[in-house]
């Protein structure tokens, strides 16, 4: 019935539109030179400028392959893309992140770039990064995007407070262990001040990425069937954050409902000594922190390892693009070492390019760039990227369950049961 109504409505809409089609603007079929549409999601001031500058440079040097820059928005890019994929009119070159690629590749919306990627570009990006864009597509496993920017989870700390507490400032080679970190937050919790603020409004990716410190993957696959696993390794980070909140009382529970950037005013005001952050947040500190406020970037914590799950920003080519080779040509120029360095600086993220990582700015100690760039070696493929149905698991099961756990409404055992029981039900629907 519902489908009938929908079709009827579509027909009605077609009729209305048909009646008024006389005012059509018409298309442009001139065809020469080739014009590629490039949907970019850059939004920070410097990053936007770098993107536009690079496109202008390319257009000047390549009159036969012109690129039209279209700025999209992270907030709604996937809705926009699904519509244009289904409508057969997608942009040629698409900026997105690797968590969105899995679904798009599976639906056949993206071109398998495996054979199109030039050797130079292939060698300049480490295999671990390529792994974040390698998925099962319609024609088998392939690379569905060129990964170029990554984010690691670090801590941003009030330097003065660390000095006063006589705390060892860690380096990438000698990072804090989780035990050490918990001890230090105790030292830094003084009077009304908390050692750390955990903003956990969207807890899932953060917890899953950090759990790799202890080898916690949360998913296991056997016989083609993926299920949720919450064993001792997965429980480590969960338990430790919970302890900081309710046992050690070194983390402020009032920040639990906050988004990533929300605790910053309290951080500047000295309410918390440290905040966990993606490395891009350093940009906000540079822009917003009161003059004289000294801060330091603390490298990824170590459990058994410092490994963290990584998601990459990627450039892909739409399957419906009429110019896949030209698109790849543009992408490989756009993402060469020098350009990746410019893009990374603009977005305050880590480039995947080995050449770019040697850029003097990215290795200087100013604004913690050296720590951020070196943290790239901790990044490995986030296991959830390969899980069909992860988005639904995340929104329907994991987010509410983790929120209840961190709000101290359910125990760790109850959380584990919820994640496995409800999670498996969701994932079983996606099993092929």
């Amino acid at each position: 019935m519902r489908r009938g109504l929908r079709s009827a409505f579509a027909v009605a809409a077609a009729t209305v539109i048909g009646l008024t089609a006389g005012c059509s603007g018409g298309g442009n079929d001139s065809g020469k030179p080739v014009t590629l549409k490039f949907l970019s999601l850059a939004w920070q001031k410097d990053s936007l400028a770098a993107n536009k500058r690079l496109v202008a440079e390319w257009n000047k040097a390549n009159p036969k392959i012109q690129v039209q820059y279209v700025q999209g928005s992270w907030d709604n890019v996937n809705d926009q893309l699904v519509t244009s994929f289904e409508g057969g009119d997608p942009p040629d070159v698409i900026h997105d992140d690797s968590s969105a690629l899995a679904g798009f590749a599976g639906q056949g919306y993206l071109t398998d770039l495996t054979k199109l990627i030039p050797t130079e570009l292939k060698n300049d990006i480490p295999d671990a990064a390529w792994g974040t864009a390698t998925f099962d597509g319609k024609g088998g496993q392939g690379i569905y995007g060129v990964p170029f920017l990554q984010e690691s989870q670090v801590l941003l700390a009030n330097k003065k407070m660390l000095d006063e507490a006589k705390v060892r400032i860690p380096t990438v080679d000698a990072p804090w262990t989780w035990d050490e970190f918990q001890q230090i937050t105790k030292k830094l919790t003084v009077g009304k001040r908390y050692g750390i603020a955990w903003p956990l409004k969207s807890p899932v990716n953060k917890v899953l990425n950090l759990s790799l410190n202890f080898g916690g993957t949360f998913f296991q696959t056997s016989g083609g069937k993926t299920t949720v696993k919450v064993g001792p390794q997965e429980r480590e980070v969960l338990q430790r954050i919970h302890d900081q909140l309710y046992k050690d009382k070194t983390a402020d529970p009032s920040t639990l409902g906050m988004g990533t950037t929300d605790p910053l005013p309290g951080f500047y005001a000295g309410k918390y000594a440290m905040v966990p952050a993606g490395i891009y947040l350093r940009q906000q500190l540079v822009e917003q922190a009161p003059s004289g406020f000294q801060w330091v970037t603390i490298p990824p914590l170590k459990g058994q390892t410092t490994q963290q799950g990584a998601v990459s920003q990627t450039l892909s080519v739409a399957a419906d693009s009429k110019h896949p080779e030209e698109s790849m040509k543009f992408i490989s120029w756009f993402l060469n070492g020098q350009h990746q360095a410019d893009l990374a600086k603009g977005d305050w993220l880590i480039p995947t390019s080995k050449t770019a990582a040697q850029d003097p700015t990215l290795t200087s100690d100013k604004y913690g760039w050296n720590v951020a760039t070196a943290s790239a070696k901790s990044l490995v493929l986030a296991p959830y990227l390969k899980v069909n149905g992860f988005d639904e698991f995340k929104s329907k099961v994991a987010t509410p369950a983790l929120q209840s756990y961190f709000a101290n409404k359910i125990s760790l055992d109850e959380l584990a049961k919820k994640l496995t029981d409800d999670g498996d039900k969701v994932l079983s629907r996606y099993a092929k």
Partner: protein
Amino acid sequence: MRRSLKYLALLGYLVFLAFPLLWLLSTAFKTPREMANLHPRWIPHHPTLRNFSDAFAAQDLTGSAARSLIVAVSVAVLTVVIALPAAYALARRRSVLNRIAIGWVLVSQVFPVVLIVIPLFIILRRLELVNTLPGLILVHITFVLPFALWMLQGYVRGVPRELEEAAAVDGAGRVKTLVSVVAPLLAPGVVAALLFAFISSWNEFFFALVILKDPDKATLPLTLVKFTGAEQAARLGPLAAASLLATIPSLIFFAIIQRRLRAGLTAGAVKG
């Protein structure tokens, strides 16, 4: 006492309504440092115009505002032109077909936009209306029309039939009756429908996102969202400055025509 309580409640409601706008106004003039202050203040300590210059430098605000204006005005006018006669016919002529039509208008409001957007996109593409302002205008009209029709129909019902009969008795023809008697009485309804259509179209985001591809065709909501990034991050200053400017045309439009938005013109019209 009761009167003062009433005023107090009204004041509370006004503050509630105006708060976001006032906060926007305050934020638009703040420096990034002041925005990140743990104890925010209403009046910026060091007011700055940099957010405005940054907003204009980053995006084509003037162009997108002009396009939004073209779309919203076209939608408002065309919606009323189509809805008015239809509403009159629906209100005055009672038949099974009319009842079905009214039911259909209501049913069309039930569909979530997400369900409709892909078929609609495909239709527009066949008609070569994707990436054109006429395409967007058409879609906005399609979505605003049912409610405008419903609203105007109520206004037509409010005009006593006896007035038309009296005009007929006095020798006025059908057209003369409609133009000289009915139309003036419907003015408040028309104004309300115009406002509704204008504001709906001016603020509409999702269809514009899907239909308009070229940056030089983007409407204002599409341009504003470009100041936001992933994980709820945003360039708050330029966003507030641009949003503040974006509310101005709506306010002007409202100020110009709100004087005509008065009900009760027909009160007492049929008393002896």
